[in-house]
């Protein structure tokens, strides 16, 4: 913690002495001097030591399999099942800041070096500063470098090498000698070397574009990104000059790097993409992947990113990988899945559909259809509901009058989820005229595109539509004419807007990362960002947090007013509870 409380110096010294005596009595073996990397400890191989150390640090689990135990706030017992070192000091070990509370870095590179108030200057830099400032730069460290022994004292007793008492929220750990050595070994290896893809002058990025993406959409991704990179690099000279002559520690000037952006174009079937990605990466190891676009699946890129631990920030895809544990890809949203999820929440929480009512999902057995239906079904069942009746249409099968009449006569559904494109318009006419008309029908604006405004008037009272973006601005919030007439342009505009969001987030992230060029840190600083409201994005809000990997969490449920240019009537909150 950054905040320290002063305590009686004698007490502190006594505690330290007692600890050192205790450690000597219990056989604490000072195995390495400051900064050294021992080759494994307590008879374990390096790999095994790191694995066990990572378990302590990240999962709060001791090598024995039991949770780590500790005391916080003076008298509060906690254990590793609640939170671990990683919860506050983050995966990179570089700490966090939240609500004015700063958690300091705990990786070896930081704690095994003294901490000065001001950066140490080189002799030539010292010559340039006014003489009266020299004492400030020559002052002794405010915290000497940790050693293995003083680190153990800090972890056990909460006292740092300068004798200051660490903030009471920093746990005082019950770790035995062996476990302490394993954890210390891990901390020394944690974020020890900057990640691949960063040189003294440049941070290398790539963007992934798959074939079959329409050219205008591909341009909508590449042009803004490349313009961003060239624009930033055109200002590099100013920053580099400032960095060269500046002497303030850890300023953004010192961390300034030019950016490079490569196009990684993937051709052919998705099962070959992984091989192509590996080859690109072998030729040019990048720090992270920015944006990118696919017209189909994203899974191979996701897996590549996850396995190589390469951050992949905000690609354009309707098919993000839905996972609660994946770490390295940050998506704009859950894509089509999220629209299904929103319907389940609306139907379950807002409408509160009685449990005996029948819900039918009609969808094409395609990637799109499966994403919508999975989003609905998984969320619906998560609300404790019975699975819906699923009618997956085979290739070539269409939604005919007969199909719908048979379905409504036989199943008498109270709710139909019609995951279909323009064909939904005719289907809705049939449903509206049906003797066994369902009480509610749900459609997706993403699938309907320009057909949204063509939904039959007689069906609008019982039809709800998912809308995963911020509503168009304006007095009457009417359907955007551009979207109805020129869908391709609307899609392109949305992509450009998303790349603008990415650029704004990237600017913040690069500044917040400073010179900590670690991939985990890059993701962490994004996790610590404030929410981005709609002035930053075409979503209602983008929000972040440790492990949160879908920045837009919402989707409106709308109804349409009457007429050719209908009013969009909001029937739900952005996030439905």
């Amino acid at each position: 913690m950054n905040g320290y409380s002063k305590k009686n110096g004698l007490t502190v010294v006594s505690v330290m002495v007692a600890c050192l005596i205790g450690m000597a009595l219990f056989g604490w073996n000072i195995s390495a001097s400051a900064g050294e990397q021992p080759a494994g400890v307590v008879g374990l191989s390096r790999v095994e030591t790191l694995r066990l150390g990572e378990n302590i640090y990240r999962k709060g689990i001791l090598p024995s399999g039991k949770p780590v135990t500790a005391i916080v706030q003076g008298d509060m017992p906690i254990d590793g099942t609640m939170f671990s070192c990683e919860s506050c000091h983050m995966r990179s070990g570089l700490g966090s800041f939240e609500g004015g509370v700063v958690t300091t870095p705990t990786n070896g590179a930081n704690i095994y070096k003294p901490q000065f108030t001001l950066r140490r200057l080189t002799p030539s830099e010292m010559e340039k500063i006014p003489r009266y400032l020299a004492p400030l730069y020559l002052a002794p460290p405010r915290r000497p470098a940790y050693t293995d022994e003083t680190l153990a004292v800090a972890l056990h007793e909460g006292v740092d090498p300068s004798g200051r008492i660490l903030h009471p929220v920093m746990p005082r750990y019950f770790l035995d000698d062996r476990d302490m050595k394993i954890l210390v070994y891990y901390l020394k290896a944690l974020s020890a070397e900057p990640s691949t893809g960063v040189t003294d002058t440049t941070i290398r990025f790539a963007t992934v574009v798959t074939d079959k993406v329409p050219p205008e959409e591909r341009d909508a991704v590449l042009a803004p990104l490349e313009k961003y990179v060239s624009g930033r690099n055109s200002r590099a000279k100013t920053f580099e000059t400032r960095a060269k002559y500046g002497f303030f520690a850890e300023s953004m000037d010192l961390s300034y790097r030019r950016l490079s952006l490569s196009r990684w174009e993937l051709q052919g079937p998705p099962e070959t993409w992984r091989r192509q990605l590996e080859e690109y990466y072998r030729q040019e190891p990048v720090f992270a992947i920015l944006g990118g676009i696919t017209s189909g699946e994203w899974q191979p890129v996701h897996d590549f990113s996850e396995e190589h631990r390469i951050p992949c920030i905000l690609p354009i895809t309707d098919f993000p990988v839905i996972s609660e544990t994946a770490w390295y890809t940050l998506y704009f949203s859950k894509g089509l899945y999220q629209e299904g999820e929103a319907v389940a929440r609306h139907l379950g929480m807002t409408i509160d559909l009685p449990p005996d009512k029948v819900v039918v999902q009609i969808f094409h057995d395609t990637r799109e259809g499966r994403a919508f239906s999975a989003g609905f079904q998984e969320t619906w069942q998560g609300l404790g509901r019975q699975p819906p009746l699923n009618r997956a249409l085979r290739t070539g099968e269409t939604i005919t009058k007969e199909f719908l009449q048979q379905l409504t006569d036989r199943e008498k559904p109270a709710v139909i989820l019609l995951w279909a494109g323009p064909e939904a318009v005719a289907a809705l006419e049939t449903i509206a005229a049906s003797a066994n008309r369902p009480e509610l029908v749900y459609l997706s604006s993403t699938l309907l595109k320009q057909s949204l405004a063509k939904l039959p008037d007689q069906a609008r009272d019982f039809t709800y539509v998912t809308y995963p973006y911020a509503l168009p601005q304006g007095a009457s919030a009417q359907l955007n004419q551009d979207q109805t007439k020129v869908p391709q342009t609307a899609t392109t505009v949305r992509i450009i807007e998303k790349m603008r969001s990415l650029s704004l987030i990237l600017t913040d992230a690069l500044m917040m990362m400073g010179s900590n060029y670690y991939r985990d840190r890059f993701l962490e600083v994004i996790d610590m960002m404030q929410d981005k409201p709609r002035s930053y994005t075409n979503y209602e809000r983008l929000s972040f947090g440790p492990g949160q990997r879908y920045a837009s969490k919402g989707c409106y449920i709308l109804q349409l007013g009457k007429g050719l240019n209908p009013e969009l009537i909001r029937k739900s909150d952005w996030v439905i509870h």
Partner: protein
Amino acid sequence: MSTRSLLLTVCFLATLAVLAHASIAEAADRKYTRSIESYTVPDVTLVDQNGKKIPFKSYVETDQPVVLDFIYATCTTICPVLSASFLNLQNRLGPDAPKARLISITIDPEHDTPKIMKDYLKRYRAKPGWDFLTGSRADIDRVMRAFNAYIPDKMSHYQLTLIRSPRDGKWVRIKELISSQELLEEFRQAWKK
């Protein structure tokens, strides 16, 4: 003044002095600042970790003592300690734990769904009586404002524990992280008949 009146006056002043001394001693022992507040609890509907709708006002204005905090599931630093303090309060109350109503309100309603909140409580081994509530952003904002705890973004979060006494409906407001023993004592004060 009669001897009797004089005696009564002396007794009264002595009692006052003892009470004042006790109060000063108590305040001197306390290592944190607290204040007594009155809040108008908004009449909103929130959702708990089981997906159940909770009429917030009646849920809070109960004859049980209430301890309330603002947290979010992926928070670093502050919330883990606040939540550990809730668990420890439940543990220290032992069989009386269900008599305390512990309420954690999310300040990240976009992310914190009932499932996520349920997993969070499970991770902290919460006992019955500790609920985690979410809701629409507008309703969560209303609740934060009602308790003079509004923040525009979860990253501006600060620690706050509020304890409501069913005796008079007043709230103790503690804007610091306190020890388990201190929270227990505050809770017992609020519970006193």
